[in-house]
Structures are given as C-alpha cells and as structure tokens.
C-alpha cells in the first residue's frame, strides 16, 4: 500500500470519528432538553402537591375553631349577664304588664 492510500484511509477514519462525535452531541442535546422539560413539568406539578396548602388550610381551620369558641364564650357571658339583669328587673316587668292589663282602654 502506498503512503497516499494509507493517509486517505486515515482521513476517512478521522471523519467517521468526527461524525460520531456530532451524532453523540445531538443525542446529548436531546437528553439535555428532555431533562429540562421533565424538570419544568415537575416544577409545575409540585405546586398542586405542595403540602403547604394543606398546612395553610389546617391553620385557618384552627383559627376558625378558636373564633367559634370565642363567640360561644361571649354568648355564655352575655347569657349570664342577661339572666342577672332579667332577674333584677323581673318584678318591674310584671308590674308594668299588670298595670297595662288593668288600666282603662287597650
């Protein structure tokens, strides 16, 4: 084999190696983009499955529960005050109603 043919064969071999590098680079590029897409989908999906929402919901439920208890306690205080005042004014109310029932025209 002459020296020229040997060099040409070597050149063809180098070109094949180069083509292989480009093909591999294209594969790598596709993998990079695919991975980015997966990461993007996962980022968006993570919003719905974020446990923070449930935590927020629970915290608010607890707060609503506390406010309801406050309302109930305020009611008990109001009833207690009402019972006391009503008891104090019971006779006055009866006297007023008797007076109205027995007086002239209604």
């Amino acid at each position: 084999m002459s020296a020229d043919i040997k060099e040409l064969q070597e050149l063809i071999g180098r070109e094949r190696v180069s083509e292989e590098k480009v093909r591999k680079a294209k594969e790598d590029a596709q993998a990079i983009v695919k991975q980015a897409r997966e990461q993007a989908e996962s980022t968006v999906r993570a919003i719905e499955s974020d446990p923070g929402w449930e935590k927020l919901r629970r915290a608010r439920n607890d707060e609503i529960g506390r406010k309801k208890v406050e309302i109930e306690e305020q009611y008990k205080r109001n009833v207690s005050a009402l019972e006391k005042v009503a008891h104090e004014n019971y006779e006055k109310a009866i006297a007023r109603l008797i007076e109205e029932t027995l007086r002239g025209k209604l």
Partner: protein
Amino acid sequence: MSIQALQTEIERKAEEEVSRILETARQEAQRIVAEANTKAASLREERARVLQRELDAREKAELAVARMDVRGKLLRVQSEWANRVFEETEKRIGEMAEKGGREYQELLSNLVLAGISAMNGNKFIVETNARDKEVVSNLLGTLAEKAGKNKGERVILQMGTLQTRTLGGVIVSTEDRVQSFNNILEARLSAASRKLEGTIRRILSGGGKAGE
C-alpha cells in the same frame, strides 16, 4: 491542502458543530426551565389567591352561622324570661280576681263602662263568669247610671253568664249582639302582652323604664 491539514480541519469543524449543538441545547433547556419557573410562580400566586378566597368565604360563613346560632339562643333566653313574666302576670291577675275585693270591683266597673262607651246604642248585655256575676249584678244600677251620664241617654243593662272558663273580666255586647267588647282578663292580658312585648324585653334586659 495537505492530508494533515485536512484532518485538522475536519476535527476542528466537528468540534465546532458539537459545541454549537450542545450550546443550543443548553440555551433551550434554560429557556424551558425559566418559562416553567415563571409559570409556576404565576400558578402558585393564583392558587394562593383562590385558596385564600375560599378560606375567607368559609370563615365568614361559619362565623356568621355561629353568631346567628348564639344570637338565636340569646333570643330564646330572652323569650323564656318574657314568657315567665307573662305567665306570672296571668297568675297574679287570676289571684287578684279570685280574691275579689274593692280593687277588683272597681276594675270590673271600669271594664263595663269602657265597653259601653266603645259601642253605639243604649241597651247592653254584660256577661261575666259565674263567680263575678253577683258582684256585677249588684253594681248594675250604678253602672247604668254612670254610663247614661257619659252617653247622655238612658242606658239599660242586663246580665249574662259566660259559659267559658275565664280568670275574670267582662264581655259587653249590644242587645242584638251585633257588637261586642271583649274585656275578659285573658283578652286584656293578651293585648297588653302583644303591645308591651318589646317593652317587657327591654325592661328585662335593663334598658327599659317601667313607665314606658
């Protein structure tokens, strides 16, 4: 160009192509991730807004129901006290009527005269329960005289007995029974209770004056 130079050129171009492909892919990946992050931030914000609105609405509704509930219970307590007043008043008026006496006689007289003055005519029937019949019968002459003075004409009264059970009081009717005036104590108490319901509640809650 020598073979050697050609080899170097092929390798250089291949390296360039590889770099370009990878660089383009990296940029595309960055764009995709950046867009996703922007979209995610926007979605998160919207989700938070929707959830906040939902929770606000729920809190408002639940607390409104709770407040309405206790307000209802408070009103029931007020009603119970008012009913106690109405029942006790009825009891005491019944006792007063049962005892009779001058005060009750005066009341019966006033009730008869009020009935007569409220109606046209000069002949009336005065009805009471059996217990009060004798008392009113004894007053009939005086009452006819007083009513006659008030009306400016002679008034004739006749007695009747109510068949229904009552605490006391009278029903005065015209002779033809076309008109009648119900001054039975239960009717008066019922009218007074309706009229004074608000006042009684105010008195019981310490806000009303007895003279209202």
